[in-house]
């Protein structure tokens, strides 16, 4: 029906041209949708990150991105691609509260990406938020669905290191009650934080000499509540 005798054997040129035109039109359509949605997607990502930082650092209303260059932490507006970045959180008066550190590592099924809040003065982790994970629904996903487990990270000493213990046997301020049935995922979260902490602790300046807040009180502060 769609191939009358005359076009039964079209020339190679026609075949090439058909595919080239189809590819060209498709490319134009894809560029169009990419350009249209890019601003919204970027804004969504920035908002999500901001909400996560405010969540893991209680009391924080302003944040700035920090990178480690030439032996010191510097404030950057746009971190370079693939450059490890942490976020300095400041309260409404512009006082430094703590760092929000993104970290990632292998979980039970796939990479777990998380963000944790760290107060260098108290040497404590004060909050943890899972950004990305594919842990088993109903078991491993308790690392972010179980409010009790998430609350374990609200005042957690990092010295000598964080340890996950069997549920109900927590004794020290550096211990976390693991989740029954999801020990691997819970231990993965602890390991990821420990590794990120070891990596960053030598790069952080002494408590009290954190980078000052640049451009304080940015007007785009809709997430302050």
């Amino acid at each position: 029906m769609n191939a009358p005798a005359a076009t039964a054997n079209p020339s190679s040129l026609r075949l090439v041209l058909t595919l080239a035109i189809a590819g060209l039109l498709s490319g134009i359509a894809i560029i169009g949708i990419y350009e249209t949605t890019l601003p919204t997607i970027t804004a969504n990502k920035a908002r999500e990150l901001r909400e996560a930082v405010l969540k893991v650092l209680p009391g924080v209303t302003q944040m700035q991105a920090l990178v480690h260059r030439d032996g010191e932490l510097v404030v950057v507006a746009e971190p370079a691609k693939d450059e490890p970045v942490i976020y300095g959180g400041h309260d409404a008066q512009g006082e430094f509260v703590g760092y929000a550190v993104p970290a990632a590592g292998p979980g039970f099924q796939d990479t777990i990406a998380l963000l944790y809040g760290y107060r260098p003065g108290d040497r404590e982790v004060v909050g943890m938020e899972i950004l990305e994970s594919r842990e088993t629904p109903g078991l491993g996903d308790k690392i972010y669905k179980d409010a009790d487990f998430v609350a374990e990270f609200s005042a957690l000493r990092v010295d000598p290191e964080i340890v996950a213990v069997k549920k109900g046997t927590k004794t020290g301020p550096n211990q976390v009650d693991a989740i029954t049935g999801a020990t691997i995922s819970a231990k993965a979260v602890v390991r990821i934080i420990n590794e990120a902490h070891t990596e960053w602790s030598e790069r952080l300046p002494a408590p009290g000499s954190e980078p000052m807040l640049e451009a304080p009180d940015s007007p785009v502060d809709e997430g302050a509540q």
Partner: protein
Amino acid sequence: MKENLSREEFLKGIWRDNPVFAQVLGMCPMLAVTNSAINAVAMGMATFFVLVGSSFLVSTFRHLIPKQVRISCFIIIIATFVTIADYTLLALVPKVHKELGAFIPLIVANCLILGRQEAFASRYPTKLAVMDALGMASGFLLALFSLGAVREILGDGALFGFNLFGANFEPWVIMILPPGGFLTLGVILLFFNWFKTKKDEFLEDVAAAQRSEG
């Protein structure tokens, strides 16, 4: 007559030739993303958009596409629509997009969509092709939703995230794990085929009764 024809093309996809329950096509997204009703509906809507858009274009340009390169052309068209759906979901509902993950790009490989292009859209006029695509896509959406709803209710005690049974409900976790997908699909297929057998028997009885009367 023509009205009836296009209505018929629409309705067949919803029940008689339902892509999931009757043709058993598109099983990969069917089993993978139906662990909650909202994921299932989002996947169904994305597939709906891709299928209807592709069928429209393929049918409109069916005389221009040489048959030697038709499959490549279909894939280019489908992939373009999938990319559009991908970015749109990412911009509008980032949370759902995150849950669906790799399965949105994989719509390209959904045999239901390519199958409809090859079997129907490339052979029939645009209007019929669009009706066929609307029917098939609605059938697929319906199937995804029934699976997603059953699995979320049993496995999570909720529907669209709203808790249905209160705190005392013990979720049947396996229903939102992969085995739950197979179990639910199996039970639904069983029902579907039982219903079909019963209907055929009933029609035969009616025919026999009419014959004996006549």
